[in-house]
């Protein structure tokens, strides 16, 4: 299985470490052609304005949108989730995004870094009662349509949502060093029909 990590900026290495622990070779991607060999894609944590600019400038935005449309499994953590959302809630600025998931996202929803926090919370779909949540200038989401499933909430706000083969989390399992959610994403990739002809041979 080949899992790419969008590698312009952010906590790329942390995701790569967890994938390696799960015996998956991570592939760092910055150029559109590199998407061709992938079975799934992770968009890591980082700054959404920075990576949004670099995605647009490089044409990676259109290339990822095309793959998303074809059903490539994509998971965004924090920044990645912000870029995947189609709408913002009260965003004070205009910023380039991917806009591939029917969710609304509230950036910096808990405040500045001073209000960033860690706390364990349940993720029922992982059969986990105490997932180590690390929330760093984190967003939360609102589903925008019935195709979005809320997989976990924290204090009544969705923080893990899924639509088809797209997954968005507002917290950072890669910073916590917890691999459960990565395993869940890899299962999503295995169960998807994408990329059809190439299958999962490697």
């Amino acid at each position, binding site marked *: 299985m080949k899992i790419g990590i969008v*590698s*312009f*900026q*952010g*906590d*790329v*290495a*942390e995701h790569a470490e967890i994938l390696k622990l799960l015996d998956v070779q991570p592939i760092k991607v*910055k150029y559109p052609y590199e998407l061709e060999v992938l079975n799934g894609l992770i968009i890591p*944590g*980082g*700054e959404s*304005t*920075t990576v949004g*600019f*670099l995605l647009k*400038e490089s044409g990676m935005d259109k290339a990822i949108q095309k793959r998303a449309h074809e059903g490539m499994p994509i998971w965004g953590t*924090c*920044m990645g989730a912000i870029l995947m959302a189609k709408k913002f809630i009260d*965003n*004070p*600025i205009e*910023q380039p995004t991917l806009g591939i998931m029917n969710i609304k996202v509230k*950036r*910096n929803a808990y*405040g*500045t*870094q*001073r*209000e*960033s*926090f*860690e*706390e364990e919370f349940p993720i029922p779909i992982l059969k986990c009662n105490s997932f180590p949540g*690390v929330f*760093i*200038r984190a967003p939360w989401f609102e589903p925008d349509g019935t195709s979005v499933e809320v997989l976990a909430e924290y204090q009544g706000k969705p923080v893990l949502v899924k639509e088809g083969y797209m997954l968005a989390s507002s917290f*950072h399992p890669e*910073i*916590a060093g917890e691999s459960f959610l990565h395993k869940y994403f890899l299962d999503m990739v295995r169960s998807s029909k994408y990329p059809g002809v190439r299958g999962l041979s490697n």
Partner: protein
Amino acid sequence: MAKEGTVLVKRGLAQMLKGGVIMDVTTPEQAKIAEDAGAVSVMALERVPADIRKEGGVARMADPSIIQKIMEVVTIPVMAKCRIGHFVEAQILESLGIDFIDESEVLTPADEHFHVNKHLFKIPFVCGCRDLGEALRRIGEGAAMIRTKGEAGTGNVVEAVRHIRAVQDGIKKLTVLPEEEWMTEAKNLGAPYELVKQVAQEKRLPVVNFAAGGIATPADAALMMQLGCDGVFVGSGIFKSSDPAKRAKAIVQAVAYYDNPKKLAEISKGLGDSMPGLDVRKLPEEELLAVRGW
């Protein structure tokens, strides 16, 4: 209970900044230009280092109203500088709700013996270093991020190169030392034994390490990345150049494509004049900033 200000959360924000450019800004307009150009964070200042150098006098924490105005116009993390050892300036900055404090040698030190006890704060600190020992001393005091000191306000990358090489050499040396030599090396480095042991075992610093001090061009930024830095601070290099918006974008792209010379060539075209530089060897001893702190 939600735990705020933990080591994981503080170091975590620095991890989110990796592969990015942090830009010095003195006005909300500059902060906006920096955000639009793709900066991962801005450093709110009253004067950029080149002006501090030129004007002299005691350089202090910026006026809180300037910092707040900058916080109002951008959505990216905002950093600000306090003087070395000035823990009250740090308390004031924390109360403003900024995202990161730089305990910086660019400002005039308030204490020539002791740095701020950074464990006491909920928001993370970044500190400058010239070698591995200095990096580990600052981490021991609670720094969540390290940067090279370089020589700020010179537009000359030579000192930043010297410092990152010194840090890397220190790490390389530790990784080949037999375990019985770690304590002596801790003594030689003037660094906490537990951190020396951790670096020897993990073969890297326990926190993110950026380059700072003299970066003026996309090529400078890419050089620091190829030398193993996690990202760069650009101080005077952007807003002292002839076309700041264009240069800011170019440096952001250079850090993203640091390993692609063809792309770097494209990025480096037609940027106008860089900031005028200074030969660090011709600076009198009392004007050097990197020697502040220990």
